[in-house]
């Protein structure tokens, strides 16, 4: 599904990713761990198509060169990024935003656009699954929401847009145990043979709830170690500094 070969990324002439390789197949859950400043969020941003990066190397997504796609086209074709710091958007009603988003995606995927009533029914169902208060949906997007509510809102969007590849950028940070469990349940219930996850995190904590098939350690702009779920537990004990 996603094949990254020798990816080099720089911003303002500073090289951040220095030849990264990654291969994700449908149905797999990959976790990327690593110390601060190792380039984890840069990887997430580059996959989403964010401007401002100098990108070199091959990113192949479902047979397409990802570098050729605009930001919105990536989303329409099934790439979803859950933000580390979800934005507050003044004045923009959550329901109107989510309906515009869903219908933009459905249109491209050849599905019928939803009318307001059908959409509201759907979004209320999904919100309930994540224990999100319905009232939030009629308010300005994320304005005045707590950190946990914002993160749940990201997962809500993921479930709504039904992506093939979901990238979760430190979705666990700022979550209390209950919210963490809800978010993890949200991810687990969406997991199937067709879609894949790339989970970026500092801590083992989230991985206790979402079991990864592979854990990669990103350090100094490269993946320095790859292992199975046990690698996370080992890192928890030894830290990144002792990796060679």
């Amino acid at each position: 599904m996603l094949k990254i070969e020798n990816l080099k990324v720089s911003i303002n002439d500073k090289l951040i990713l220095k030849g990264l390789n990654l291969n994700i197949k449908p149905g797999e859950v990959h976790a990327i761990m690593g110390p601060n400043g190792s380039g984890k969020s840069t990887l997430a941003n580059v996959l989403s198509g964010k401007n401002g990066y100098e990108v070199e190397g091959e990113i192949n997504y479902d047979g397409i060169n990802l570098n050729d796609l605009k930001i919105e086209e990536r989303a329409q074709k099934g790439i979803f990024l859950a933000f580390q710091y979800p934005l507050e958007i003044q004045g923009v009603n959550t329901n109107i935003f989510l309906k515009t988003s869903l219908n933009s995606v459905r249109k491209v995927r050849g599905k019928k656009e939803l009318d307001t009533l059908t959409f509201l029914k759907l979004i209320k169902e999904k919100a309930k699954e994540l224990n999100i208060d319905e009232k939030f949906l009629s308010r300005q997007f994320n304005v005045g929401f707590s950190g946990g509510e914002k993160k749940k809102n990201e997962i809500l969007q993921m479930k709504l847009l039904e992506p093939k590849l979901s990238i979760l950028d430190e979705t666990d940070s700022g979550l209390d145990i209950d919210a963490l469990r809800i978010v993890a349940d949200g991810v687990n219930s969406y997991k199937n043979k067709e879609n894949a996850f790339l989970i970026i995190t500092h801590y083992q904590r989230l991985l206790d709830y979402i079991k990864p098939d592979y854990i990669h350690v990103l350090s100094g702009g490269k993946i320095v170690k790859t292992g199975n779920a046990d690698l996370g537990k080992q890192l928890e004990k030894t830290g990144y500094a002792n990796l060679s």
Partner: protein
Amino acid sequence: MKQSYDFNIEKIKNLSLEEKISRKKNLDLFYKSGFPTKQVEDWKFTDLNLILNKNFDCISNDVNFESNRDLDIIKNFEHNYMFLTNGKIISSSFDYEEKNKILIKDFNPKETTNIDPGNTLTLLNNALSSGGFSLEITKNYKLKKPLVIYNYFSKDLKNKILNNKNSIKLNEGSELMLIDYNDSNTQSNFIRNTIDVVSLGENAILKNILIQNSKSNGHFYKYIKGSLEGSSNYENYILSSGLKLNKIEIEINLNKDNSSCGIYSALNLLEDQHQEIKTRINHNSPNCKSYQKIKNVLNDSSKGVYQGKIFVEKIAQKTNAYQLSKALILNDKAEFDAKPELEIYADDVKCSHGSTSGSIDSEAVYYLMTRGIPKKEAVKLLINGFLNEVLENITNSKLKIFLEKILDRQINEH
């Protein structure tokens, strides 16, 4: 170069000799300086003489009031209406109300003495006004439905100026939602110079919404002079995007305790459109409140201006006054000018103001795009959110949906 014009008082029908003399005096005073230029402080951001020069030949005041267009009623919400052509009443309907509680008639210039000549356009209005209406709501009568004033304009207005005076009077305890709905069926350049004299009795509530329904080459100037008695409330919502030139000058006098006013605007200006909102809120009495929220989105080579003054008299203790202007500038050629002013003589007041202008938040655009929304749509969604916020106090839900649609269309015209 001075704008050329050919004004003639004789073209106005049914004037007494006395009126003619008074009008002639005003016209002579107007002739001394002509249309305001940017040398006049109040017009420094809107050089009217220059703008007229570019767009008009010789301007005349020869206006007829015959209606030749059927009324196209808004179906989105129930309402009463008055139908005006070139500022004169053609018909009206108050089917939802007790009809004897509402008095409407043609404006009678004898009833209102000349308006204080704050600028030469007032002089011109004093000299040339014709048409116009008087509206009065009797004591304690609260209209059940909004009143829409349909302003239509005839097709023969090229190079003409309309001068109207209107009077809106709400007696003690009465309430009215008044919607000025401009629909210009003409592409020709014309000028409209209007004065609204608004007076609110004790506890009266007037909400006034100004809507421009279509793009127009109209060059509009409107002067609203409001006087408020104790505990009365005046609110004005300006949704006039689409006019080639528009300057709205609002003077509100908070004359008695606990009176309050709010001025809100949401404008999306395109091409070379130019709109100015100028306010002067006079806190003449203690415990009064005023609130202003002015929002502008500037596209292409458009220009927006906000000049807002809050004046607090020495006796007006416990004044609470606020003004905020926010502009989104989307093109290097667009311009926004803001001039906030506070003049305060009382010592126990709360007055604040803020003014920001900037481009659209690129992080927010990026976020929306990662949700599959193309850039153009994302920008529209953000503009919509930016402007829509102004409508949050409108409680009539059908009316609110209608206003949101108007805003949406004004944004999508781009």
